[in-house]
Every structure is written in C-alpha cells, then in structure tokens.
C-alpha cells in the first residue's frame, strides 16, 4: 500500500483533526457521506453533540484516490468508508482490508459516483456470487442467506463458529443493492419524495420527513401548523407498526403461537388504520415538501374511537407478554451490547435506548409538530440485552399512541389551515442541507444537494445502516439458537443498508 500522505491534500488533515476532536469531546459520530462534484469528491462528516448536529467538510481532488482512515479511533466510521470505497472508488488507508459492502465490483470497475450526474452503463446479469472467506482453526463458516427460511429481505450472514458459539461474523448486504442514490440524480423534488419513501419502505414516513426537512431547510419554508400534526400522526403510526413487527418476530422465534396471532392481528389493524387515513398501508403520498397532501381521510373523532380499541388490545397483550416467563427467559441476557460498544459505534434508536443512551431526534431536534407535543421519558433499566430493547419498544408503542391521540385532538381543534392549503410549494432554489427524522429504527439523516429545483445528490442514511455494523458484536455469550432473537431485537431493514 502506498503512503497516503503523498496524495492527500493538506486540508484533509485539518478536517480529520476536527472530526477526531469532536469525537474526543464526546460527540457522536453520525456519518461520513460523499458527493461527487466533477472529478472531485466532497466529504462531509456529521456529528451529534448533545443532539445538535455538527458538520465538517473537505474536498478530495481527483488525484487523491485514498485518504487516512478514521476507523482506528472511530469504530462506526468503518462501514461508511467501505460504502464510499464501493461507490466512489476512494479507499481509506489505515485499517485492515477494506471489503466491499454495498457493491461487489472488481477494483478496476467504474464507480457510480453519485452526485456526478454521469450515466452508468447497464449492468451485466452474469455475476458470480462472492466467495466465502474462511479463517480461524477448527472453525467453520455457516453461510446463512441471502435466501433464508421465512419471508425476509435478502442478506447473507457468514457465521463463523466452532460449533455453538459465534466468535465472529461477516455480513453481506450487497445482494439487494439497487443504486437508489444514483437514481435521485436529476429528479424533481416531487419525484424525489416518492423515491425517498422507497429507500426503506418500512420507514416510508420517516424517510419522506428527513428528505422534505432538507428541502424545507434549503428553501427556508415553514410548513402549515396543521401539516406538522398530520406528519406526527403518520410517523407515530409507522412507529407502532414497526415495533409490533419486532414483537411479532420475537414471539415467532419463541414459538408463542397465540401471541404471534394476536400481535399479527394488531399490526394488521394498524396497517388498515393507516390505509384508511391516507389510502396507503405505508403512509405513502402523505408527506410533501412544504407540508402534507391533505388532512386524514377520516375524522379525528373516528380516529380516536378506533385508537381506543386498538390501544386497549395492544396494551393488554403486551402486558401479558412481558409477564410470560417462558418468553422473557429467551430474551434476558441475550444479545448484550455493552455500553462501550454502544458509545463507540454511536448506536441509534431502540438499540441505543435499550442500553441507556436515550437520545431521540424527535425531542433533541424537534421537527414536524414534536416541539409542541410533550416529551415522555422512557423508564428503562438499560441492561443492553434483547429484553431491554423489547421493553423500550413496548414503552414506545404506548408513547406513540399518546402522540397520535394528541395530534388528532390538535387537528380537530385547529381545523383547516387558514388558506385551506396543507402545503407550501417550495420555490426552485439551489443549495444543500441535511434533514432528519426519528424512524422506528432510529435517526435518519438525509443530505440533499439541489440546483435550481433539480436534485443533484441525495444521500439518505438510515438507522439500519449505522446499527447493522454492531450486529456481529451482539453475540458475546450467545449461541446459534439465539440468532433469531438477536436479529429480531435489532429490528432493522436491509433495504436501508444496501441502498
């Protein structure tokens, strides 16, 4: 390997020093994103200091094909560096081999370089799947995926095991890489929202909110007050649905047939309620840049009536489940993430909150109407195991129902916006900004660059991308039969990782 300092420009070192200094002073490393601009590559590091976002930037010229890695000090930077290596052909130097993450291409292959606006050739369909790498003595590798038993998104877990324990694991998400970031190039804002919704389909509303938040920041728009409440309503129902999905996966793994049927039924009722509110079971088409497409399709009174039954059903079953010893035994002490790991990897969402790191974007950097709604503190022990994460989700379901209720009441009280408009069309502007939202999985960040109303670079960063990197570390004392529980307790979506 050549010495990185030969080609790396001086400003990079200043950038790198600032990022390291932020992390040393306790800021959470929240992402390293890149955007091609001509033959140069812009790099942006995002950090969160007590909930406030900090941005550091630099530009690498075409002559610099590599840069010194952050990963030795900042563990969570590693996956971002792998992704940048795949998409931009820019390698980080300083840690062991940089394996492909989202795009398994030969090293000489042309890179998509999102932001450049250049067309890529169509792909060849004759790809050979990547080889499984073996290491360690007496250990063998179980290749689990990409087609697994059950209805799952495609992902491959390469579990290295001497028999039962799981000392190390590798993940491959590239199977379902769609090239979404490149597909944003040249789209209008309106089309961009539709694509953002499909970046991570189970967190449709959160991704639309983060994307539109960035647009509204660029255009300096204030959304109608009522639109903020509609946004909260849909975002919180999305949270309920996702957390119920996580519960379903837990009880399915535990073989709790009645609980499985009950929670599946509740989730179906939530999805149906969502479709009655907007026509889509995933809240698609609700969030627009500048507001929302309209009020809920059913009255607030009807919504509150429906919530009564649904909430009572969920609460009763959740209470019973959290008092079912045979279930709790499977989760207690399973998949423990140490506080050290949580901090080093900057864990997000319920995963972090299960270990006592309570940061929640909804209240740290309020968006939509969260600033006007009360903040309900979680009561968690922070044990860091699957049970703690499950407790967080059960409490968040309660909290989300409360927020839906509050939003519906506010909407009933306030009526239509003054001018009858539920959204303010954004002007055709240029600029860039980062938007955010707390998806059910955790913080979503979306970096948007646009020129005269046309998107030039959109980089959504899902919580799943950030959190999945920790998955191999969640098996300190666990064995193969715990796998399903630990996966369920992470509650992630692969689409948001593979991009």
């Amino acid at each position: 390997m050549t010495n990185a300092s030969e080609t790396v420009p001086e400003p990079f070192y200043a950038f790198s020093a600032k990022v390291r200094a932020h992390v040393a002073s306790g800021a959470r490393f929240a992402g390293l994103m890149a955007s091609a601009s001509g033959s140069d590559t812009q790099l942006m590091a995002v950090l969160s200091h007590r909930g406030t976002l900090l941005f550091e930037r630099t530009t690498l010229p075409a002559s610099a094909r590599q840069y010194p890695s952050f990963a030795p000090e900042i563990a969570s930077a590693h996956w971002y560096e792998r992704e940048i290596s795949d998409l931009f052909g820019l390698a980080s130097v300083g840690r062991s081999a940089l394996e492909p993450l989202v795009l398994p291409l030969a090293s000489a292959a042309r890179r998509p370089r999102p932001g450049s606006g250049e067309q890529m050739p169509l792909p060849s369909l004759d790809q050979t799947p990547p080889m499984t790498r073996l290491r360690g003595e007496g250990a063998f590798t179980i290749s689990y995926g990409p087609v697994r038993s059950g209805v799952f998104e495609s992902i491959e877990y390469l579990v290295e095991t001497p028999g039962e324990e799981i000392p190390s694991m590798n993940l491959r998400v590239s199977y379902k890489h769609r090239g979404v970031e490149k597909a944003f190039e040249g789209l209008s804002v309106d089309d961009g929202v539709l694509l953002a919704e499909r970046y991570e389909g189970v967190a449709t509303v959160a991704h639309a909110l983060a994307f539109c938040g960035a647009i509204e920041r660029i255009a300096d728009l204030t959304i109608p007050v009522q639109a903020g409440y509609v946004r909260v309503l849909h975002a919180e129902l999305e949270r309920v649905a996702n957390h119920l999905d996580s519960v379903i996966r837990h009880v399915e793994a535990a073989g709790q047939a009645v609980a499985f049927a009950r929670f599946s039924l509740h989730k179906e009722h939530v999805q149906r309620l969502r479709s009655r509110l907007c026509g889509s079971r995933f809240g698609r088409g609700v969030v627009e840049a500048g507001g929302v497409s309209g009020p809920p399709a059913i009255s607030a009174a009807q919504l509150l009536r429906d919530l009564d039954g649904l909430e009572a059903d969920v609460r009763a079953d959740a209470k019973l489940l959290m008092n079912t010893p045979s279930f709790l035994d499977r989760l207690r002490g399973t998949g423990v993430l140490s506080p050290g790991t949580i901090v080093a990897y900057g864990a997000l969402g319920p995963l972090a909150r299960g270990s006592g790191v309570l940061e929640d974007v909804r209240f740290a950097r309020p968006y939509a109407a969260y600033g006007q709604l009360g903040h309900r503190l979680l009561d968690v022990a922070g044990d860091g195991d699957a049970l703690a994460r499950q407790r967080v989700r059960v409490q968040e379901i309660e909290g989300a129902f409360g927020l839906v209720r509050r939003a519906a009441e506010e909407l009933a009280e306030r009526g239509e916006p003054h001018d009858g408009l539920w959204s303010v069309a954004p002007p055709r502007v240029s600029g860039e900004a980062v938007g955010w939202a707390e998806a059910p999985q955790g913080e979503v960040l979306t970096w948007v660059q646009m020129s005269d109303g046309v998107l030039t670079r959109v980089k959504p960063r899902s919580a799943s991308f950030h959190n999945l990197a920790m998955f191999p570390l969640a098996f300190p004392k666990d064995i193969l039969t715990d796998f399903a529980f630990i996966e369920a307790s992470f509650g992630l979506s692969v689409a948001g990782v593979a991009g």
Partner: protein
Amino acid sequence: MPWIPRGLRNGIVTTGYPRKPDGYEAKSRGTIEVNSVRPTPLIDDVMVACPTRAISVDDGGIRLDRGKCILCGRCVDIAPQNFQFSPSFEMSELRRAGLVVPTLEESDSNVELVRETLARRVKWLHRSIHVRHVDSGSDGADEWEIAALTNPVYDVQRLGIYFTASPRHADVLLVTGLGSVGMVASLRHTYEVMPEPKVVIATGAEAISGGLMAVGYATRGGVSSILDVDVYVPGSPATSFGLLHGILLAVNLLPKFDKSVGSDERPGVGKTRRGA
C-alpha cells in the same frame, strides 16, 4: 396458559375472501382506473407528471400501465375526468400486456389460452400450495405484505397455501424487488432447484417494471429480465389481498365469478372446478 383465552378474545377475524368480498378493501386505494379514454388537453400534463411514465395515448385513447403505476395519484389530481382511484385489488394478470388498461379486445382470446396452459401445468398441485419468497431488491414493504398473509385476517393456510423454507419443496416462487444484479445468481438458483411444475409470481411495480428505478446500474427493470414470469401482481407494494388474488390466480383456485364489484353470490373455493 393465560394465552389460550386471549386467542378467543376477538372472535373470528378471518376474511371471507375469496368466497365473498371483504369490506376493508372496498375503502382503500387498490388501483387506478381509466374512466374515460378520451384525452383532454390536460393529458400532456398528466403524462409528464407521471413519475414512472405509465400513461400513454394511442389510437384507442388513454392507456395506463399498471405494471409501472406506483399509485401516487397525480393523474387523479390533474385529470379526474380520465382517472380515478378504485378499491379493487383483483388486478393480477397472467400476461404483462394485460396490465395495460383498458386492454385491447383482440387479446382476450389469448388470455384464455394462457390461462388454460397454466391451469394444465398446475393441475396436480390441488389444494396444497407451497410458496417460497425471494427478495431481489425490494424496499422492504413488500415483505410485510407477504408476511401478513399468515396473520389471522388473511390466514392463507385455510386455503391450502403454505410458506416453505426450502425452494426444493416450493410450487410457487413469489419474487419481490426490482431484480437487483446481486440477486441474479441466487434467484436463478432458487428457481432451478424448485420441482416441476413451478410458477413464478412477480409482486409489485418494482418486480414487474422496476417502478421508479426502471433503469440503473444495479437493476434491469424488473425480474422478467431474469426469470419467466407467470403472474403479475401490481401495486406499490402489492397488498396482501392483491397477493392472495395473484397466488390463487396462479394455481387456478380462484372461484369463477364476475370480476365486477358487489356480486355476493360467489361459489366457494372448494366447489370450484379446476381447469374449466
């Protein structure tokens, strides 16, 4: 033990579909209908606004390709005289061309031929249908709709439909996602190890046409570039009811009834003659 009475708490929640229509879907946005094929000057705006270029105009008037439609509803907003949301979810088709509505009349006899050929192929599956799902680059929502088929509302086991862990036991391959390059080898391999007869269902606009991402460096515009598709289930994502219709269509277990909404007198599944 306390779970047993819990299972009885809400009584019977299972849908009557396909024996009779389900009230829920009647209230949702299942698809978009072309209610008038005569274009107005607004049609140019509609064609530009459609994010997946699903709308075209030919000699017969306006046509909508449901295989591309992601149900954003812009056409309905701009030209309500031509387009409207419809609650119907029985949109699955045996031919790609059948998703372009209104369909050309001359193709109707073709449909029967395709239907009969498929019916002969799946004849011996009877009422034990094993389904294997493979994700080839979905956004994740499609999997939720498929997983929902086993919840007590849809309860597909009552119809003899089971999800199977191994493709070697599968009769139906349910493919989600836009056919990502990374999944080509795994998808082909899964298909190859399935025993005959086998049926491939493409679910959702992404799997049928690529949807919003028809062209890209990692996609080839749907799974039909990788496998021969037998049944197309439109939607974004395809809803659970839409999937149920698609699976029943694939294995020729749909009760024979008029497609128009509201006909309550439908024969039960068990009474249906197959291959007729």
